[in-house]
């Protein structure tokens, strides 16, 4: 079964290596052991600017990459320029919004998403619902610039033609799945949480297997716990194939065709 991992952070002391290239080589060795064919790297460009192009040239058939983008304190024009440089004119294929990146539903950020869509870029948005606050409620402990799955739903409703990936299935996946359920242009990524039995089964039941994508969130998580969510789920082999790579390959196909990459 082909496995592509959408969600890799190629950094941190858990991954041996001094440079990005060394760390990625070591990640690929572990990925080989775990049966994973391709890795999607979330890249903080300012750290690795000179390393990125040679890395993707060397591993054209093993890697795909995303710009880790910040919305709330970076001028729109700068983000557009980043996409033009690294996606339209470089080797990367998508954008990723992280937990500190800004609330994705704020209308002022729309040009980022519409420009990404015009480049056929894949759009990944971190989401989580952390219980807290007074009175306690899901999302009450979120970071100030952290999107909730409900924010992805608002964005999706405003742009029903733009495919979006709701990262981590909202963290609290029983709520996250419900939040994005009505919006057919939203897929969920299952990575980053504990391997609680039932997550993938509920997502398949409520969204359909075509809207679920495997990702691990390595190195903050391991490959093992995240692969287990699919390997261990009580779903069909066909559904596992879609989650492990079929759906991601479908989302990547337009930009891959434009760049001459194989999917």
């Amino acid at each position, binding site marked *: *079964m082909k496995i592509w991992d959408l969600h890799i952070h190629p950094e941190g002391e*858990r*991954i041996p290596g001094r440079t990005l290239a060394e760390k990625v080589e070591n990640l690929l060795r*572990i990925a080989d*052991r*775990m*049966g994973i064919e391709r890795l999607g790297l979330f890249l903080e460009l300012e750290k690795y600017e000179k390393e990125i192009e040679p890395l993707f040239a060397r591993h054209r058939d093993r890697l795909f990459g995303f710009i880790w983008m910040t919305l709330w304190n970076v001028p729109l024009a700068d983000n557009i320029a980043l996409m033009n440089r690294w996606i339209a004119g470089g080797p990367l294929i998508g954008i990723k919004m992280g937990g500190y990146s800004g609330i994705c539903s704020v209308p002022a950020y729309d040009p980022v998403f519409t420009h990404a869509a015009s480049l056929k870029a894949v759009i990944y948005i971190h989401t*989580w*619902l*952390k*219980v807290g606050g007074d*009175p*306690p*409620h*899901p999302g009450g*402990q979120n970071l100030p610039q952290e999107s909730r799955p409900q924010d992805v739903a608002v964005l999706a409703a405003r742009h029903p033609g733009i495919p979006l990936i709701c990262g981590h299935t909202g*963290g*609290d996946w*029983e709520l996250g799945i419900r939040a994005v359920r009505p919006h057919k242009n939203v897929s969920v990524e299952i990575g980053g*949480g*504990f*391997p*609680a*039995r*039932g997550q993938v*089964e509920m997502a398949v039941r409520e969204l359909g297997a075509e809207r679920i994508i495997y990702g691990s969130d*390595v*190195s*903050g*998580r*391991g*490959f*093992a*716990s995240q*692969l*287990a*969510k699919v*390997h*261990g*789920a*009580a779903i069909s082999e066909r559904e*596992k194939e879609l989650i492990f790579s079929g759906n991601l390959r479908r989302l990547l196909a337009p930009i891959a065709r434009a760049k001459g990459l194989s999917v």
Partner: protein
Amino acid sequence: MTSVNRRGFLKGSLAALPPGAGAAQPAAGIVDTSVYLSQWPFRRMDGDTTPELVALLRRHGVAQAWTGSFDALLHKDMSSVNARLAAECRRHGRDILVPFGAVNPVLPDWEEDLRRCHEELKMPGIRVHPNYQNYTLKDPAFERLLRAAAERGLMVQIVCWMEDERHHHPLVRIPTVDLGPLPALLERVPQARVAVANGFQTVSGARQTLARLGKFDRVAVDFAMMDALMELRALIETTGIGRVVFGSYSPMFYFESAALKMREAALSDADTRAIQRDNARRLLGP
């Protein structure tokens, strides 16, 4: 328990891997130190009936499962929780499920629950959930329980965490157990045998406590909850291979998670054998 030769054991370790991730072989040998019967209070899931769970464990090559009850988290009538647990284990998994009863040392007459676990239900150990029962390891009641269990030769399994704190029901928010006091307790109660379940998410967050626990040869920690790249290897490097036991935390977690962590860590056959079987057997005793 059936004795398992080396070939059979290795087949068992392969059986723990999911189809597609490696050859699936029949056979057995794994001691799974973290299994629950009954139902998680906040969700139904596959494997939350005893026959289903036993079938799941057998499918993955588990020969022995240390088994507690989800009922122990919120119920006050521990005697009936433990009696049901023992009966379920006998009825559906006599050869595989080993019941670990619950004792709450802040309930009146907990000593009777401990006596019944030992003398009537013939359990080899007990499983405690200090956070769900609103005490800490610093509480003198816990030290009394640890001493009383040790005097009876019962192992004590301390469960520190049940689910991601960020996703708790807003009205049922349960803190993680602080294991900081445990090494000092073990110094004071030298006969105590302790297994820690769901104690740590990462080694870096608890390196000092883990290193101190690693010095006691009557302590084991599982890695069901540990989750970061190659974290099992980091655990072994910190505590020593002799302190690490296999816990799947089934049915709450997919069994494949613990099994695949063994593969991710690229362990030797000897280390695999120690973690999947020998360390747990040694701690539990004859």
